[in-house]
């Protein structure tokens, strides 16, 4: 019988710690598929961030450096400048990238570092137990916004893909989701583009993935998946915001 589906080589044959219905597994798979397709597993350096994504060294079968909270783009910069022939990617959540690591992501992007940044936006701090993130929706209740995010005090959710697309140093910036087969297919395509930018040395590439966090949203996996399309996509529109090399 012909095998039509299998684990990507760039992923280890191991169970993850992710909760049922969490989208990290899908995002890991898409990134691994892109590495497989370019045949770069052996020359890739991943940079893990702080949050649920910290364990990526346990799941990706590539060399990994663990970065302090928010600093992955700076760590990736150091690694890439020292080893410009390697594929370097960071994988960061929304608290990590859009709050404590804002300076690092903006300046790595603005310098046009030849790296790929995978940004998982699930509108909450997952690892620490569901606190308010910079991407938390207005009105969303979290463990530190028990009355719902109040924009007059907490501001509005940050749209990182659009923000970074304003910078001249950025080659590619896009937002995708993995909440439906159609969106997964588009996410796979754009994830590959985000790595192609680096393989072809076309500049800084950023891909934001809207993701579900059923546990911290207090939802079952199906309802959480539904929320991504119903509540997040209207505020965080999917699309390509910058693509200077037309890849």
């Amino acid at each position, binding site marked *: 019988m012909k095998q039509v589906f299998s684990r990507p080589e760039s992923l280890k044959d191991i169970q993850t710690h992710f909760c049922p219905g969490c989208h990290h597994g899908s995002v890991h798979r898409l990134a691994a598929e892109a590495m497989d397709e370019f045949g770069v597993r052996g020359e890739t350096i991943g940079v893990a961030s702080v949050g649920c994504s910290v364990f990526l060294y346990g799941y990706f079968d590539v*060399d990994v450096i663990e970065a302090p909270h928010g600093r992955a783009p700076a760590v990736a910069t150091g690694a890439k400048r020292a080893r410009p022939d390697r594929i370097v990617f960071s994988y960061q959540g929304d608290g990590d990238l859009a709050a404590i690591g804002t300076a690092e992501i903006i300046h790595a992007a603005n310098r046009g570092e030849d790296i790929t940044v995978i940004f998982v936006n699930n509108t909450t701090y997952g690892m620490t137990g569901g606190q308010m993130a910079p991407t938390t929706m207005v009105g969303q209740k979290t463990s530190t916004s028990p009355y719902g995010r109040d924009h007059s005090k907490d501001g509005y959710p940050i749209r990182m893909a659009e923000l970074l697309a304003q910078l001249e140093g950025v080659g590619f910036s896009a937002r995708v989701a993995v909440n439906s087969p159609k969106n997964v297919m588009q996410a796979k395509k754009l994830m590959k583009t985000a790595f192609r930018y680096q393989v072809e040395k076309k500049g800084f590439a950023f891909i934001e993935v809207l993701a579900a966090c059923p546990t911290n949203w207090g939802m079952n996996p199906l309802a959480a998946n539904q929320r991504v399309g119903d509540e997040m996509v209207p505020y965080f529109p999917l699309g390509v915001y910058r693509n200077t090399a037309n890849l």
Partner: protein
Amino acid sequence: MEAGLSTKLFVKGNEAVAMASVEAGCRYYFGYPITPQSDIPEYLSRELPRLGGEFIQAESEIGAINMLLGASATGVRCMTSSSGPGISLKQEGISYMAGSELPGVIVDIMRQGPGLGGIDASQADYWQATRGGGHGGYRIIVLAPASVQEMYDLTMLAFDLSDIYRIPAMVLADSVIGQMKESLVANPRPVATLPAKDWAVRGRGEGQLQQVVKSLKLGDGEMEAHHWKMHARYQELADAECRWEELQTDDATLIVTAFGSVARIARTAVAMARAEGMQVGLLRPITLFPFPSKAYADLSTRCKRFLDIELSTGQMVDDVRLSVARDTEVDFYGRPPGAGSLPTPEELFEQIAKNYRR
């Protein structure tokens, strides 16, 4: 320029650090402007691109130290430099580097504090440097040059020690040593046997094992084992790498002790005391971590009076008191840092004379 031992240059301390880093094979520098160390990034921003290296002026000291972490993790020699306020920001990254056993050189040209303080010389960051500085319980190698020549020599040594022991190394000087010009013999990099960096992350390649550089240690007993391993390594460092200078300590009945810029002033004051017939010596620690405790312990079996002098209200004096024999008297004279607080040789001579005759 003619190469050779007779070639003398006339350079600033900060330039000597930058020159030494290049001679030591460092091709990656990440920094952020701050007085009184900016000559280092200025020099390297000019030289490193010519040598095929990389210079990045980072968005912050936090950015710079994390670039150092990333570059070091791939196995290259790399350096950052700063002063008090910037060194405080770097502590997060230094802790992660210590936890990940990453080498790397951090130059700290101390200025007065706390807070913004000012740009005059200070030794008040002794504790911050020698006690680790960041969270979690760790130590880093700390070298304290007292001349432009030592800025050069100890910077090269910092790279070697850091690579050998897989501990970040700090060159700790102040604006006096960093900003003054002296003659320098730019010696070639000394030959050292360095371990292979088989732990480095370079892209695993086919058939090789995955390499991970990390400080997260969640396994049962994993972190405890790490702490004991590093504890043993610090002891090994103390046994093998302590460096200090002694001047006229053989017959001394009072030993003055000071490091860095203050040791230079103390040296003149000791000479003045000798000219007056006083049996005074000088003990200058060159490594602050590991602290040369044995030198103090040995000398204090015979000489029972020490005078510690610092540009602070007393920090190294803690280590001196922990090191000397129990029946030794350790006195302290300090000038907290700030404009106008650098002591003169006459002032220190007065303190020596007062303690000597007491």
